[in-house]
């Protein structure tokens, strides 16, 4: 059953560049189908803005099926909006009602500078992943499937962490602007598996310390888990903390031999 929402007020953050100040701009959506996705609603608004000769609202989006991690909007004070376990692209207008005021902001963190309007630069995440380095893998012909035994619960836990799409909702939702959930997910999906063991401790130390140079610290509010479109549990943060502790001791021990 399709319904039509009427008279939505949008307060959208407009900002020309990283070093300029921004402000909210108010737009009215007279009518929109509740089957429209949130991003389609902005598309429709943008077409109208372009027709009126105004600048379209700049926002990040790509796959629009919740797997790429590109979309990033703070909607009414919630990262990715009111729908749990989805990214903004899978939020639909049926979650809102006629007459609502919707506040749309970019992610806010010093490590995510605003490029323009609602688009932020999340390359600090790439720096964290880069610092984790490689995994050692045998070259040559493709190995037989299931050559390395992995217990089912372990592979499940690693795959849960590997679901991270790097959207940055955890940082956006965190009252401290911490990236612990992202970093922990990236560390965990390798550190739980046998393939990740050779560099386990250098990875943990390097990634945590790179994270440290950009982001805030974890105070265990749990907001990241609630905002995560992949519902990654903060259990991975405890795992990262334990691995970081072991890494500091292990790496120091190994380095003292060289």
């Amino acid at each position, binding site marked *: 059953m399709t319904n039509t929402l009427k008279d939505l007020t949008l307060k959208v953050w407009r900002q020309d560049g990283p070093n300029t100040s921004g402000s909210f701009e108010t737009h009215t959506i007279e009518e929109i189908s509740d089957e429209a996705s949130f991003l389609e609603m902005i598309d429709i608004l943008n077409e109208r803005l372009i027709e009126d000769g105004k600048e379209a609202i700049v926002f990040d989006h790509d796959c629009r099926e919740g797997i790429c991690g590109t979309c990033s909007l703070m909607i009414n004070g919630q990262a990715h909006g009111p729908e749990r376990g989805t990214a903004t692209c899978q939020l639909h207008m049926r979650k809102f009602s006629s007459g609502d005021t919707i506040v749309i902001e970019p992610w806010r963190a010093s490590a995510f500078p*605003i490029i323009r309007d609602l688009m932020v630069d999340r390359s600090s995440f790439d720096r964290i992943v*880069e610092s984790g*380095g490689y995994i050692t893998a045998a070259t040559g012909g493709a190995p037989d499937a299931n050559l390395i035994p992995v217990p089912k619960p372990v592979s499940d836990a690693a795959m849960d962490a590997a679901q991270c799409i790097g959207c940055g909702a955890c940082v956006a939702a965190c009252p401290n602007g911490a990236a612990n959930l992202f970093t922990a997910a990236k560390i965990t999906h390798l550190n739980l598996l046998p393939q990740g063991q050779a560099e386990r401790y250098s990875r943990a130390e*390097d990634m945590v310390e790179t994270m440290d140079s950009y982001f805030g610290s974890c105070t265990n509010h749990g907001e990241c888990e609630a905002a995560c479109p992949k519902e990654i549990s903060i259990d991975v943060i405890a795992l990262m903390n*334990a691995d970081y502790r072991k890494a500091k001791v292990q790496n120091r021990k190994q380095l003292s031999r060289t």
Partner: protein
Amino acid sequence: MSQTFQRGPVTGTAVKKRSRRKPFLVDYYSTAVGKKYVMAITGIIGVAFIIGHMVGNLKAYLGVIEHNGEQVYDIDVYGEFLRELLVPILPHGYALWGLRLLLIGAVVLHLHAAWSLTMLNRNARPVKYQGARDYQIANFASRTMRWSGVLVLVFIAWHLADLTWGWLNPGFEYGAIYRNLDASLSRIPVAALYIAANIALGIHLFHGVWSLFQSMGWNNPRFNRWRKGIATGIAAAVVVGNVSFPIMTLAGVISFQPLS
């Protein structure tokens, strides 16, 4: 409202040149995760003290006992026992001072870690969200840790001036714990302060005790469901125990009578 993009160092296992001049603990403490370990460990020391302090104080309810052929208040004997701890291995009062120094060190480190992490977090989001935030999980306790912590700190200063140094205690007598307790807590505003401060302490512990499991990396499906329960239990026990003293003093259960 302007932001500048500052990039941190790019590190990588293969290319990173490690400089290891800093001593291990200093190096560890210099990271946010390391500071959270320090927060958790000093927190554990604090929680252990708070529980011990509360249980020790329950001796006030035992009233008068006979000790070495004399009628004395049980809690006064307990106070003297603390000073006699480990005698004759250590001289009188040394063990107690050792514990006090451990506590002072823990408080100083807890404060320093809290301060520097707060500053780090402020810098991590220099421009706040301009619209209202809609928090999903963060609760009152987790969001007011800094305030409940400051309240507890101010209360500790008052509490020391009242019952340790005696500056704020009418007719303070060194070693006469039961008398001093009664003299202090029968003042209604003071009793109210103790009740309020202990509720703040309970709120701080409710989040702190749960949080320390995560910070220490103690996460195991076997006991994860107990972590929040342990935090609630410890917070509740401390609040109920400590709040009972001002209430029972005002109710006349703790009431000092000079012993001949």
